[in-house]
């Protein structure tokens, strides 16, 4: 390749734009600042719109009212009970889905020929919306938390499985041939060749599944009526307590954000050693 790329700084600076600032310290601060500014704008709008009458305050209370309500219910044990229920459903579903997804993924990916036989079945079952299971789980579990767990497990399983299969597909053929020429045992192959390649994909799958699992947990609670944040929303809405309903919605959103941040941080930490943190799947 171009030998002049060895030149210090050239590769960076010779990028799309003429370098705008020569002091790289500013860039990080600017982006952090920009993000905060955006949130502030949102907060101001949320506060102003109902007050000014742009949105009907009865249905759409101002941010201050919602936050105040949140402070109130945040002190009750009922609230935390709801949060704990949701977290339990979420975690259980996610763990089962990840476990079974990894196992299935390894079995299908590593068994020669399995992939082509299972391809049509996967492609048929995958797009079936998990909500189609709702009547079934209502019959089986009623409004117990297991309903939510089944829903989550079903949907999250596909995410994990697919990412596993993408990962196994992506194994460098040179690495595979090298392993074969050194007569690696199955187990050694999985440990030294397959698993390191898989890991980033698996992480993406778990991250996506985690976000999906939270949404489904809340959905199950809302539609089926199991205990949790979703039920909090429904109850509040049924008694016309708009601020409280929005407070619960806010909580659901914050939980989602927290999960996303935690997942990304974990991904960065655990995959730091990985030579090429690939853009696996690319979906958000």
């Amino acid at each position, binding site marked *: 390749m171009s*030998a*002049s790329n060895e*030149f210090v700084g050239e590769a960076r600076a*010779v990028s799309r734009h003429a370098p705008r600032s020569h002091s790289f310290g500013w860039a990080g601060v600017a982006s952090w600042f920009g993000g905060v500014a955006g949130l502030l704008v949102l907060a101001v709008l949320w506060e102003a719109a109902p007050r000014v009458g742009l949105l009907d305050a009865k249905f759409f209370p101002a941010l201050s009212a919602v936050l105040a309500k949140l402070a109130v219910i945040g002190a009750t044990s009922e609230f935390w009970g709801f949060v704990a229920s949701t977290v339990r459903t979420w975690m259980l579903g996610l763990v089962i889905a990840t476990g079974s997804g990894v196992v299935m993924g390894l079995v299908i990916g590593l068994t020669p020929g399995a992939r082509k036989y299972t391809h049509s079945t996967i492609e048929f079952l995958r797009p079936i919306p998990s909500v189609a299971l709702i009547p079934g789980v209502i019959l089986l579990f009623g409004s117990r938390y297991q309903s939510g767990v089944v829903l989550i497990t079903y949907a999250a399983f596909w995410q994990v499985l697919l990412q596993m299969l993408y990962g196994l597909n992506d194994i460098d053929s040179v690495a595979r041939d090298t392993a074969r020429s050194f007569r690696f045992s199955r187990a050694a192959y999985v440990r030294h060749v397959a698993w390191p390649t898989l890991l980033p994909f698996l992480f993406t799958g778990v991250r996506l599944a985690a976000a999906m699992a939270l949404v489904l947990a809340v959905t199950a609670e809302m539609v089926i009526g199991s205990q949790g944040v979703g039920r909090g929303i429904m109850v509040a809405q049924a008694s016309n307590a708009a601020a409280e309903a929005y407070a619960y919605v806010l909580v659901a959103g914050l939980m989602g954000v927290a999960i996303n941040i935690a997942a990304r941080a974990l991904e960065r930490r655990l995959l730091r050693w990985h030579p090429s943190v690939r853009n696996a799947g690319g979906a958000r």
Partner: protein
Amino acid sequence: MTGVETAAVVSVQNLNKAYESKERRVEAIGDLSFDVRHGDFTCIVGPSGAGKTTLLKCLAGLLAPTRGSIRVNGHAVTSPPEEMAIVFQEYGRSLFPWKTVRENVELPLRERKIPKAERQRLVDSALEAVSLANSADSYPWQLSGGMQQRVAIARAVAYQPKVMVLDEPFAAVDAQTRADLEDLMLRLWGEFDLTVIFVTHDIDEAVYLGQRVLVLSSSPTRVLDDVPVDLPEPRTQAQTRIEPGFAELRTRVYRGIQLAKKAKGPSEGAHS
């Protein structure tokens, strides 16, 4: 030859380009001055790290110089000049993969609002000139590396630029293809009356192709030697490379580069 034709198409005056980072200031280009006249085929060589790519980006208006000026066709370069066409080294990434070969060559002409019939003519003649008329409806990724680079060259030719700048365009193709592409460049230069600035690290290539070879020093870069190449025309792979003059010129350039590698230029850089 009127005065207009001998005036410089590209004029680089005291070009200086420095990169600043938190720790240090590095001068890629120290003090570069040269002119290129209409119809010239000028090759630029230099050791690794000689700032060849930086020079190219400055010429192309993609980077702003720290000091000094570049003028193309009489006016100063502050943004990519209209009269210039660039052929990049990474041909694979410079072609649009979602467009066919023909569409790729045609796109810059559409932007210039050239009427359809004229566009067709220019595209067809350019593709014909690079012997890719039959691949006009293929996609770039369906072609070999050498063919892709020819598409990039055809695009530059169809654009009818005043100056064509090529950045080590044949570095990433195999030797046989490179020889063919070199001859293609010479042919196009003659057929379309182009003005060419050809950056390369290959000394043989520079002497074979150019009428003039500029040897650059290491950073901070300046012109170490300006070698006129008066080998007989037309140049051929078989004949030209065994001319006695070729070996002499080649040696002169080679020595220049060795010198450049040893002596770093006046060190104004490396502040802390």
